[in-house]
């Protein structure tokens, strides 16, 4: 019994020493965190929280509103709808996407190269 108490006491002393050392030496992870915060000062404080998870859940979301599209078509009537610049990542805002803008998703007609 007394051995145990002595052991814990010794352990406590070493952890105190370690903490003193740690205070002087920043862990690599914390150093990396400081680097990140320096590059992106506006980074939110909830790293693993809602924002990141919400982005994960929304994977695959495309933005196309058939109502807006048809309204725009009706307004312009005979004129052609403005097409988007070839370089675009998300179609939101003033430009109404047209079926031509949406990237074509076709199934692979080619066999896998693993089988060749």
């Amino acid at each position, binding site marked *: 019994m007394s051995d145990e108490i002595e052991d814990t006491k010794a352990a406590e002393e070493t952890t105190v020493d370690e903490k003193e050392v740690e205070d002087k030496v920043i862990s690599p992870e914390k150093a990396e965190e400081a680097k990140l915060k320096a590059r992106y000062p506006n980074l939110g404080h909830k790293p*693993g929280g809602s924002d990141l998870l919400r982005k994960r859940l929304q994977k695959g*979301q495309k933005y196309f509103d058939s109502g807006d599209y048809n309204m725009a078509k009706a307004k312009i009537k005979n004129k052609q709808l403005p097409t988007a610049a070839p370089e675009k990542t998300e179609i939101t805002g003033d430009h109404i996407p047209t079926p031509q803008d949406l990237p074509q998703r076709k199934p692979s007609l080619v066999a896998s190269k693993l089988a060749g």
Partner: protein
Amino acid sequence: MAGAGGGNDVQWCFSQVKGAIDDDVAEADIISTVEFNHSGELLATGDKGGRVVIFQQEPESKNQPQCRGEYNVYSTFQSHEPEFDYLKSLEIEEKINKIRWLPQKNAAQFLLSTNDKTIKLWKISERDKRPEGYNLKEEDGRYRDPNTVTTLRVPVFRPMDLMVEASPRRVFANAHTYHINSISVNSDCETYLSADDLRINLWHLEITDRSFNIVDIKPANMEELTEVITAAEFHPNQCNTFVYSSSKGTIRLCDMRASALCDQHSKMFEEPEDPNNRSFFSEIISSISDVKFSHSGRYMMTRDYLSVKIWDLNMETRPVETYQVHEYLRSKLCSLYENDCIFDKFECCWNGNDSVVMTGSYNNFFRMFDRGYRQDVTLEASRENSKPRSVLKPRKVCTGGKRKKDEISVDSLDFNKKILHTAWHPLDNIIAVATTNNLYIFQDKLN
């Protein structure tokens, strides 16, 4: 140092590599899953283009009894196609997230393959005979005029060249609002589970129009969302037990006998974290990317960004073993966050007798940890080491200071060459390692 992987004396040799050599990788060719069947005779791969390729091991030849058979293409088919959900304005990728084999019950083989939204049951069967000698049909299929038939004969089966056919037998659709990350066949061989970010469903293999929700962690208010489900698996022999892992580094074990909805876990496995060590990256790197039961069912293994942990199902407080996969990346987390590599989902696997575990890393390196001998080794899957039966040389990453010859420094690692998917033959020392678009097969050296 000779190489972990089932004893002190195991040496791994190159056996085969599948796939194109060129560096220009089409996105469809990116391998997304690799899985041996229960006998190890078949090896299935799925890719981002929605295709499945199945390889079959050739029987051991009589000439070289010591040499294990090679894996050759057995069947290939388009499992899933890209879809667009117009109601939700959601693009559904055809990428095969997981393949799981059913235990073989008759001559045909069955596997489940899934993309983000739909699971399909495929039957792969062989045809090596065909009927000939019909009375009303010519051999080429044209119909004969019944008036010209003067005698009758009995059609007979004649041998033909082997044809392997894959046909979709069941389509399990419309049960997942979020993206499916796991499927797992129950040991009862009648049911299986599918898990997405927030829910887990239980299916019967015969029934496609109904599935039971067994776990639902969606909060009433999505603003309160703090964690998602990252992987799930049924226990290998207890048909009532399954586990699921989370983005916060926890694993919950559930017992389906306890209640219909298993939102309350029976056990929760979590390693306590030192609050002083907490950083911006802590939660992200603690996210579990894979969970696998040992074949014995006594242990389970989890993979987070930097380590592999072995848990004893009887102890929830901490893992019994922890292996560092690439600890040197801890001082690179900032860049790995910027290039999104910190979100890479590595898988892990057990060898047949649960003595060795394996997982992938960057630079086309993969790691094996021998639990008994307490040895680990780093090997590389590359075309440079692809001479038949050449022994793989252990690789070493230099973490600082002077770089020795043959070592590679952390800054020279290619983070685009990631090995996310590996598989170990259930009985033999044969492993399948997937680089971005190539499949490597390695075997241990037989003398």
